[in-house]
């Protein structure tokens, strides 16, 4: 009797397999979670060391314009004003998004409203290819084509925010476009039918109905594009000029957070103030990336409520 009972209550091979499989997938997902937590932890601890270990002032870091972490200023405080980098980073990001958005919207509208079949078949690979081109190649083109062109037309060295904007514009274009396409496609067909039935032209329908309905998605797309531009390192580093000074105009050499990081961190020793100050720049990058995420989430929630 007991033998039968035991046999019946014992878990079968299939059940054990099931547990095993489930365990594997849980371990994997836990690993992903762990990765994110450890990135946040390590960058954060390094990044705040400037302020906790080296006792630099966080207000100086965010508002001063002298970046020379190895030196002390007249008051004996380290010169870690990161404002020029922060300003440059934001300038190239916002400018690139401003230039890219009309193009991205045009391509998205063309693919969804004007010529859905022919247009998509032709433009989809174009977008995918633009995504696929590595950032160093964009940087190389920027260095050999864009910078000399700017030097020729506008004078100066050609390096600077303008060159960075041009390069980033092409890099964020596919990101914004493909997300815009998704959100415009998600607008229900009956919105368009209703508008067209009222006698509106295609542009009126697109502009007054489709784009309005897709606004949250389009904003999300722009934010994602900005996040990409803000974090892009090498392409920008190759064309921005890498001078950690307050940018005086669009064509004077400047330096973004990422470009300063990539070009300087190899020249400093781990644990020293110059090195910690660079990690603080990385922390600002990380923080901004989280902010972009939160904004996207916020827009998504607002967009959902409207429906």
């Amino acid at each position, binding site marked *: 009797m007991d033998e039968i009972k035991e046999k019946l209550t014992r878990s079968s091979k299939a059940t054990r397999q099931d547990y095993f499989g489930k365990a594997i997938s849980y371990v994997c997902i836990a*690993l992903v979670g762990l990765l994110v937590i450890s990135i946040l932890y390590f960058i954060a601890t390094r990044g705040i060391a400037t302020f906790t270990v080296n006792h630099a002032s966080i207000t100086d870091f965010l508002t001063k314009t002298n970046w020379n972490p190895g030196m002390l200023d007249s008051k004996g405080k380290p010169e870690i004003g990161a404002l020029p980098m922060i300003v440059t980073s934001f300038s190239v990001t916002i400018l690139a998004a401003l230039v890219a958005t009309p193009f991205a919207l045009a391509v998205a509208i063309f693919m969804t409203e004007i010529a859905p079949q022919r247009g998509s078949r032709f433009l989809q690979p174009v977008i995918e290819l633009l995504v696929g081109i590595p950032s160093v190649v964009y940087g190389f083109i920027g260095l050999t084509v864009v910078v000399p062109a700017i030097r020729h037309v506008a004078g100066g060295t050609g390096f600077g925010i303008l060159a960075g904007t041009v390069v980033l514009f092409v890099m964020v274009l596919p990101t914004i476009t493909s997300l815009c396409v998704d959100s415009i496609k998600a607008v229900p067909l009956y919105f368009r039918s209703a508008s067209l039935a009222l006698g509106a032209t295609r542009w009126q329908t697109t502009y007054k109905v489709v784009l309005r309905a897709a606004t949250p998605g389009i904003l999300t797309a722009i934010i994602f594009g900005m996040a990409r531009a803000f974090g892009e390192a090498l392409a920008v580093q190759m064309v921005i000029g890498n001078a950690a000074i307050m940018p005086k105009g669009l064509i004077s050499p400047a330096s973004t957070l990422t470009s300063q990081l990539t070009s300087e961190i190899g020249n400093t020793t781990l644990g020293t103030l110059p090195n910690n100050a660079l990690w603080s720049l990385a922390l600002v990058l990380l923080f901004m990336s989280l902010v972009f995420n939160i904004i996207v989430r916020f827009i998504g929630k607002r967009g959902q409520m409207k429906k």
Partner: protein
Amino acid sequence: MNPKTSNNVATGIIMALVGIVVLILAGILGYILYAGIPHMSWHFLTSASQSFKAGGGIRDQLFNSLYLLVLTLIISFPIALGSGIYLSEYAADNWFTGIIRTAIEVLSSLPSVVVGLFGYLLFVIQFKMGFSILAGAIALTFFNLPLLTRNIEESLSDVSDLQREAGLSLGLSNWKTITGIVLPAALPGILTGIILSAGRVFGEAAALIYTAGQSSPVVNYGDFNPMSADSFLNPFRPAETLAVHIWKVNTEAVTPDALSISAGSSAVLIIVILLFNLLARWAGKRLYNKMTATK
């Protein structure tokens, strides 16, 4: 302006903008190929790079890129597969899943330079790996994992529930249904995703500068023992990839022919990525036809 004219004007403007975008892409591709192909020769592809003299090739960099790609996929694919299965098959719609999804989103939007610096801090310094292919591969895993996970999740979710029900009604366990029925059905999508992510890994540089390093020591291609120091298979040696090479040649190097090296390397990079793209389309379609008996 009456509605009809404004409609025409708007359409015209849109067409013009689309035309400009297409021209930009054509210009980029055309420029890279035009500038690069004259420098692509058998000698360029198969000789070692030079630091101070002109005429160096990209043999080691090309191999390093491919080796790094393979290592990255070996590390990241199983984890992404497990996570993808979890998200599409097991994840309940609760706060925990919400956090996991947010975590993946955060990971995918992190700037790659931040990921690279983290890899530098943790693997190169803390775990004392030094600049090594392995450290680079792990850093790229971070970068690759969210993309791959999301792709696998989507491919699995695209498989119709009828397939799962059929499996379960035959008395198969949940796990057997997933591995035996759902996974094969999702394979074409997963494969396409892997190849596309491979293209991105191949061109990535920012995450590698401080993990895989910027130097490429002389390696011996006859030594197949991965543990020996100068073997080409040794994962613990520093390795400069093609993308890093382009960056370095343009920013720091003193090679007199930097321009032609980077033009040639860029062309190689673009061509390989184009091939990946074509391969992804072709393999996905072929595998799909094979598995669903459409043809």
